[in-house]
């Protein structure tokens, strides 16, 4: 009796979760197939009256959008790569070594994770313009690295503490230095954790908006979220609903692919410490 009720409740919950999570996604997909003529006169129904691929043709030949995609991929990948390298070094030290100031490093990371990014926008803009980093890739990569480091350090140090350290000791007994032990034994064991940290870091950099609109001004370095907020359609006075929805779909595809392939890893990364505790 009770069990049946539970099972029914869970099933209803399952459906609700799917609807809640996917309805807006289905909605932008549907909108992306509506023609400009249809949205121009107002089209409140959910599905397109007359589905068209025109928006996709327009978006995929829109050079500004393609530039933004290139910038987004380039900046996010470089920032992720560098951030994860630095974080791996730091997380190894935190999980593994005894040194002064460890607590201070963790507190700093925590403080930066909570930092109101927008309060840096003014001084960073002022500094970047004098250093000629304004509207460049490094101008975004550097702050993205420092804002993803806390996340990467925390995730990685949680993973690293689960690694069987005896193996490292064995290597050290065999005459390896700390550094060799780190590279030969720990790196392969840590790779899955590093990969998870990289996914979460990539999500951050791919999503970031405040710095992206404040520290860029052209398609030379503007990323997708910023480009979308400035999106200009053929009609200078009306936002191009269909094209915006199409751009949304296009930039969501990589996210969906990553989620489909790595959902286990992402969930583990987000919840690591607690699950294993």
């Amino acid at each position, binding site marked *: 009796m009770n069990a049946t009720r539970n099972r029914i409740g869970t099933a209803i919950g399952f459906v609700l979760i799917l609807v809640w999570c996917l309805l807006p996604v289905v909605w932008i997909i549907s909108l992306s197939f509506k023609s400009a003529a249809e949205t121009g006169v*107002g089209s409140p129904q959910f599905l397109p009256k007359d589905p068209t691929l025109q928006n996709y043709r327009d978006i995929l030949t829109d050079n500004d959008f393609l530039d933004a995609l290139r910038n987004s991929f380039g900046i996010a990948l470089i920032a992720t790569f560098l951030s994860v390298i630095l974080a791996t070094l730091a997380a190894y030290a935190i999980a593994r070594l*005894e*040194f*002064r100031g460890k607590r201070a490093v963790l507190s700093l990371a925590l403080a930066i994770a909570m930092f109101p990014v927008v309060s840096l926008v*003014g*001084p960073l803009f002022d500094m970047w313009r004098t250093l000629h980093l304004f509207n460049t890739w490094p101008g975004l990569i550097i702050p993205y690295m420092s804002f993803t480091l806390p996340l990467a350090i925390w995730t990685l140090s949680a993973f690293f503490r689960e690694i069987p350290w005896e193996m490292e000791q064995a290597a050290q007994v065999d005459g390896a230095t700390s550094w060799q032990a780190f590279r030969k034994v720990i790196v392969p064991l840590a790779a899955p954790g590093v990969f998870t940290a990289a996914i979460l870091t990539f999500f951050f950099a791919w999503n970031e908006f405040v710095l992206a609109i404040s520290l860029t001004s052209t398609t030379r370095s503007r990323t997708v979220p910023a480009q979308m907020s400035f999106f200009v359609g053929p009609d200078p006075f009306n936002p191009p609903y269909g094209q915006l929805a199409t751009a949304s779909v296009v930039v*969501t595809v990589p996210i969906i692919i990553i989620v489909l392939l790595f959902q286990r890893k992402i969930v583990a990364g987000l919840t690591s410490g607690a699950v294993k505790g």
Partner: protein
Amino acid sequence: MSIATAATPATPSKPGKPDRPGKAVASDRAKAENRLGLKLVAPAVILMLLVTAWPMLRALYLSLFRYRLTTPDDRSFQGISNYTTILTDPLFWQDTLNTVIIMVVTVAVELVIGFAFAMVMHRIVFARGAVRTSILIPYGIITVVSAFAWQFTFSINNGWVNSWFEWLPWIGPDTNWFGAHWPAMFAIMVSEIWKTTPFMSLLLLAGLSQVSEDMLEAAQVDGATWWQRLFKVILPNMRAAIMVAVLFRALDAFRIFDNIYVMTKGAQGTESSSFLTYRQVIEQFQLGMGSALSVLLFLTVLLIAYLITKFFRVDLAQARGEG
């Protein structure tokens, strides 16, 4: 969303580090380890400080000036008058109030929905992958995209909310959601909640799996009702996870910017503290006044973090088992 993912939650049960025989070895070795440790964390620490501490100090300095980028001749030392102007300005308080409302409402709603989702994910025996995948999609989606999706949802000409919910007495075919303060705030909060509930529910799921099944069974045998089990057994045992989730989501919600930028650009009095700061600095080029706002925003975040940790009486670093 974002950095909040750093909330790899607490592991109170675990001592910080495994025992190491290395400790007994000569102090040369300890010194070398200390040096290596510092060298390994140095690049990350330097970079983090470079992009936060240095600009923050510069903001502190700039905040003492009247300084506008496009009228460079009109620059003068003002002392703390920028701060007094801000603290006596109704706009600043209105925006702070908005931000606090958004923070409290979204975190509270997310806590409830997130907990329900976590329960379902915890119990479910079929299609676990499907649930996990679909819940991760809002988590991974770009906030700007979420804002657009919801803006179009509530759009008067192209949205489906007005036609689907027309049976509600206060919604009609020409309800203009972005035409007044509260409906616009509602739309903004819906987008924020949709986007960040998955994060909340995953952290709560982690906490939920720490609650021992034995205790639950024992309670059930003792005749405890579902509600009693929830409030007496489940929630108290999840305190650390709830605390981490609330702290990170609250501070994340306090920084709300993307949704407001896309959906209303601050119209109808829906501006947040972050948006106000952004506008002063980037749109009006008021580097002096904007820097003063930046400093105040930073102090507010510190205050909120302090209040939440005090309220839950948990020391984060200790909770993580770090020395």
